[in-house]
């Protein structure tokens, strides 16, 4: 049976200053924000900005999106202006029941805010609607670390 190591575990075992690990990736302090939005029949493709602009270098640990039945088979995605579904892929939140969806896109887990392109900032979390008009309450919580 073979034993191999993750990227950061490799750095830990190798030791030395050259193996510095990004802040927050080991013994990271977990921070969180919560936000809420009341949909009142907004048209499809509405972009909802939630929470603060995250600091450069923040790493996303978890996204929890919990809503009423928003009606009309409205789908929601969660991401940012650079990648609108970086954290949660298209999910039907209007299918006749309340629903809680969590981060489900592999590239989103541990994603580091880098602000590579100023015109499409990745430091502002966005929820985007599709399919039809939405009505009801949306709650979102995001856990992240930076140091």
């Amino acid at each position: 049976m073979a034993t191999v190591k993750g990227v950061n575990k490799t750095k830990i075992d190798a030791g030395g200053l050259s193996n510095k690990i990004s802040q927050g990736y080991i013994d990271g302090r977990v921070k969180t924000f919560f936000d809420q939005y009341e949909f009142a029949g907004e048209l499809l493709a509405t972009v909802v900005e939630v929470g603060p602009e995250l600091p450069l270098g923040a790493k996303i640990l978890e996204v929890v999106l919990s809503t009423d039945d928003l009606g009309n088979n409205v789908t929601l995605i969660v991401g940012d202006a650079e990648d609108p579904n970086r954290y949660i892929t298209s999910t039907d939140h209007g299918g006749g029941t309340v629903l809680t969806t969590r981060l489900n896109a592999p590239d989103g887990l541990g994603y580091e805010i880098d602000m590579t392109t100023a015109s499409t900032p990745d430091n502002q979390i966005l929820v985007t609607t599709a399919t039809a008009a939405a009505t009801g309450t949306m709650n979102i919580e995001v856990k992240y670390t930076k140091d």
Partner: protein
Amino acid sequence: MATVKGVNKTLIDAGGLSNKFEQGYLDGRVKCFFDQYEVSSTVSGTVIEMGPELPLGSKILEVILSTDDIGGSSTTLAVGDLEDPDRYISATNHGDGSVTTRLNKPDGLGYEVDMTTAATPDNQITITTGASTSGTTGTINMVVFYTKD
């Protein structure tokens, strides 16, 4: 309707120094680590060590494992440690599309790292591959939340 109490709630309500309970179980500070591994034709039974050796007394709060479709015809991943390879996440198919799995073992939630047996340390989180892994490739991302104080 009956009302009963959890172990720690019982200690809180009873009060007194004799009811002191372990650090991290109340008003605990949540910490985390992140690690990543690029699977490249990894064979079945491979143990992937992820993150640091956790300090004695750490309590595990959540484990999130999110991967690409790592192929290999229904490749399974289990998360635990060298004492119990599936203490946190039971063997789950990560080979049919991208999948995100979270802690799903009751005994893993709140588990305290105790290093009972030196030969099988429980302070090193591991992923163990299983089932068919021929042609397995892709990225594994992992986040672990824990508390100690």
